[in-house]
């Protein structure tokens, strides 16, 4: 009788582990990752407000995923800045481009380009209803640096990694967003 209970408990644990990993995997784009648990980025906006929000977004992710660190470096070639042209289509707020060496699975290059077709809110306060929140979009893009995929489940439409953002909307990093990143970088 006791053996049966133990066996049942173990089965439940294993099923829960499998369910956890399956859920997490659904939000990881690939197994691509960085070769180090620290990656350097360089904000390249002319205005300090935009660059400060980029730093704030990086810092927020750092607090949510202790096993991985975003650090700023003026010599980094992983840059975040406005679209020089042709990188961000109409209807898109920002795009992250990253490049992986298929032999190692390591990301070697990562850049974020922001639309120049939008009216951005670069402040720390909540965005007004006629501007897109630069901080929220930057946090979303940094999520892709962990190779997190966009989320397309409408039940998670309020999560940071959902595939679209509304004007005047501010989102924060939730467990739905950071748990897969923690698995990638324990």
């Amino acid at each position, binding site marked *: 009788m006791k053996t049966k209970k133990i066996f049942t408990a173990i089965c439940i*644990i294993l099923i829960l582990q499998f369910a956890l990993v399956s859920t997490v995997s659904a939000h990881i784009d690939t197994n691509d990752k960085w070769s180090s648990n620290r990656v350097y980025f360089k904000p390249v906006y002319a205005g300090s407000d935009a660059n400060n929000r980029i730093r704030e977004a990086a810092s927020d992710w750092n607090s949510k995923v202790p096993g991985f660190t975003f650090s700023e470096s003026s010599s980094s070639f992983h840059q975040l800045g406005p679209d020089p042209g042709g990188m961000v289509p109409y209807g*898109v707020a920002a795009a992250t481009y990253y490049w992986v060496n298929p032999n190692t699975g390591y990301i070697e290059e990562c850049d974020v380009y922001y639309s120049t077709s939008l009216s951005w809110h670069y402040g720390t306060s909540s965005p007004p209803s006629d501007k897109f929140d630069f901080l929220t979009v930057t946090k979303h893009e940094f999520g892709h640096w962990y190779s997190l995929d966009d989320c397309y489940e409408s039940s998670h439409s309020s999560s940071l990694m959902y595939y679209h953002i509304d004007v005047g909307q501010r989102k924060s990093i939730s467990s739905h967003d950071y748990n897969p990143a923690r698995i990638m970088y324990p």
Partner: protein
Amino acid sequence: MKKSNFIIVLSILLAFIFLVSLGANKNARIAENEINKSNLIGHVHSSNIKFDDEEIFGYADLVAIGKIVEVSEAKYEIQDFHSKQLPYIYKDYFFEITKDLKGDLPQGEVVTVRVPGGEIGKHKFVTDSISPGTTYRQLLYLKEWNPIDDNKVTYTILGGPQGKYELREGKAVGFEKSISEEIFLEKVKGFKEKYGNKVVLPPGVIK
């Protein structure tokens, strides 16, 4: 050892093996430390703007029903990604218009929808861009845009999955909703009557 203890030890061991195996594949790849920068795999992720039905109609340059009559082979252009010059791979989808709802293009006109992504030899470019379907008639919300700047008039599907509806079995099937084709088209025609071919910028969009 008691039978129950043996089962516990065995289960812990199995759980450990299970967890370790999750990372084994990655470690094996990491061990292959051969750098070949010429065949980097590109990935693109886009944050789309949320549109409602009226906004996406107003912002589109062209709204039309049609079908894909041809898809090009993957093509590429070398682009400057800050520190590296890398191939930007894309495909052209040729969309034949059967009914124009905004833009005043004649029936039978074929327009090019340029979609990033594809594979050429050892080069691969993986994107989350939406491609037009090739099976069903579809309604597309299109915006003139050309990432390659080759002096051709090409279009992009607006708003990712929000800009594409398949018309099948009397329904307009979009990513987030599926409604009667008749009702859907009546609604779109209402926007046409309201805005004509005029481009209306949604809130927060400046160009």
